[in-house]
């Protein structure tokens, strides 16, 4: 069993919610990324989503856009992201890592070459924001051949028939985008999320995790209550944005925020 299914089924049997944490590889400095990944796990993260920087991150709000820009100033690439995962694996063989990014760097790397390299580095899954299922077939085959999960998004605007199709294709988990908008905005409506997640659960064979707009203990708790777990990004990336902070200070703050989210979710 791969790491994602392993972790998610363990959480389920314990009656706990999954906490997925997102940072961008190379932000604010490439040499800090692996330490920060460990800090997230120490704080209580179950899964790490490692953002792969892209020059044109269309789905991101200002906080994560700037993180991509900071990472690109250091020339951080898809190859570097896989190198970080490989280094992370030297100390952590258990925590699943999802690479999250945009299609073009993967296109340029080559689907087959990417899937093999990602597997070899210890990556568990890929989430490509701008690759909806209808365009994902060729990549999907390469990922499957290398036992990597392909994480798909479902949005508030996704029609019921399409939701069903996406759930059938999905592996690992499905990622429900909690509102119409970009990452980091604050338009979260927990009741609307609850209703939609319950509809998705009727057709999903994987856990349903929710992201976008979850930034603190109370929003994590509200969304965790109606789903299998939450994804937190911009709130963590905000910590990276402090220009004067040392790596130690940043990691301490990352860990503290993750701990508060973990505590809130474990109260459910």
């Amino acid at each position, binding site marked *: 069993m791969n790491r994602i299914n392993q972790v998610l089924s363990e959480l389920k049997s314990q009656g706990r919610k999954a906490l997925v944490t997102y940072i961008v590889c190379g932000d604010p400095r490439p040499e800090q990324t692996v330490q920060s990944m460990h800090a997230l796990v120490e704080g209580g993260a179950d899964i790490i989503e490692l953002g792969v920087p892209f020059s044109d991150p269309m789905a991101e709000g*200002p906080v994560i856009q700037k993180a991509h820009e900071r990472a690109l100033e250091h020339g951080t690439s898809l190859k570097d992201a896989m190198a970080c995962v490989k280094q992370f694996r030297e100390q952590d063989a258990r925590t699943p890592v999802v690479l999250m990014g945009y299609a073009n*760097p993967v296109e340029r790397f080559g689907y087959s070459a990417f899937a093999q390299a990602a597997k070899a580095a210890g990556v568990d899954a890929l989430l490509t*924001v701008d690759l909806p299922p209808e365009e994902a077939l060729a990549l999907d085959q390469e990922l499957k051949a290398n036992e990597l999960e392909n994480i798909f998004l479902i949005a508030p605007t996704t029609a019921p028939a399409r939701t069903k199709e996406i759930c059938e294709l999905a592996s690992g988990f499905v990622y429900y985008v909690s509102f*119409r908008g970009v990452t980091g905005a604050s338009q979260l409506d927990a009741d609307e999320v609850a209703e939609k997640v319950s509809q998705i659960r009727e057709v999903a064979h994987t856990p349903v995790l929710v992201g976008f707009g979850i930034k603190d203990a109370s929003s994590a708790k509200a969304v965790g209550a109606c789903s299998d777990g939450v994804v937190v990004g911009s709130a963590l990336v905000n910590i990276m944005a402090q220009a004067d902070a040392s790596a130690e200070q940043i990691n301490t703050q990352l860990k503290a925020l993750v701990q508060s989210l973990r505590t809130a979710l474990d109260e459910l």
Partner: protein
Amino acid sequence: MTDKKNVDYQAMPDSRGHFGPYGGRFVSETLIYALDELDAIYSRLKDDEAFQAEFDKDLAHYVGRPSPIYVAERLSARVGGAKIALKREDLNHTGAHKVNNTIGQALLAKHTGKTRVIAETGAGQHGVATATVAARLGLECVVYMGSEDVKRQALNVYRMKLLGATVVPVESGSRTLKDAMNEAMRDWVTNVENTFYIIGTVAGPHPYPQLVRDFNSVVGREARRQSLDMFGRLPDALVACVGGGSNAIGLFHPMLEDEQVQMFGVEAGGDGLETGRHAAPLNDGRPGVLHGNRTYLMEDENGQIIETHSISAGLDYPGVGPEHSWLKDIGRVNYVTANDDEAMNAFRQLTQVEGIMPALESSHAVAYGMKLAAELDKDDIVLVNLSGRGDKDILTVAQIDGIDV
């Protein structure tokens, strides 16, 4: 290379928006429903007689179509080769071909019942054309423009404001057209329920490349008919500049089956292809995914989109419409370049010997048209799409001349 005789140009794109391996829909899931909705409405209306009649009426009475073909006799004589004819899209209301598309999309917006339109713009021509139709239909209008372009194109920014549009300067990335498009996408994903995104070129997710092509194809349909009337035959060559490629596809598409007509799409060569400082993805890029479609792009070895360079803001874009990528691969259209200096030279020559001041974008087509005409016989006809007028570029040209206007 594909046997062009067996290519069915009218069958493209397929139902999922693919032109061979190009095009498609590479967007986040939230937008799929809006694209499905647009596709359904457009599929219904494109063959609807009442809709077409409304579109044609606006083109005739609001835009001032048909635009004439003008034979540039003095320019032709100076070049000393084929006859150079100009399709005068510069004479349209708002000064460029862009309005053909904004009229069409605004009519679609009206049919969707959405009350707010957004657009991205580089040089500002598409922004002005969008603000114009929004004013006419009483729609709220927000235009995204890279902050660098806001500085370069102050006149068009003010024009949009006079028309009642809100112009939002975009500070992310390279602060040019591509970043404006990213920001427009972010607005759309946030306000998708009440907002219609009027994309200004034949790029973006399906069905945009198709519908923008169809709305601009009035240029090629007219040019075909006018050529037969004026010359008793079709031109030997068509020449049009290619940024995203909407004026070029508009001219080319209705004549793709006319095998005797050679076609040349002219990309921005900037400082020269060999310098890497240009905006010519079809000449010096490779296929990738950006802004919702797979197409030729300017990118680095890691798949990051790189900054482009052109004297003309409207061509300063790292991608190109997916149909052009396909037409390049099958060999139907030749994609060439004209660099900044050649475009400036063409701008001055056309202004001085014909009294027509072309947009710097269109000047690239004029430059290549002159080069091509010089190699052909005097009985040959080269039809150049004069896609826009140069008034908006006067400050740029003055700056080059060291004059403070």
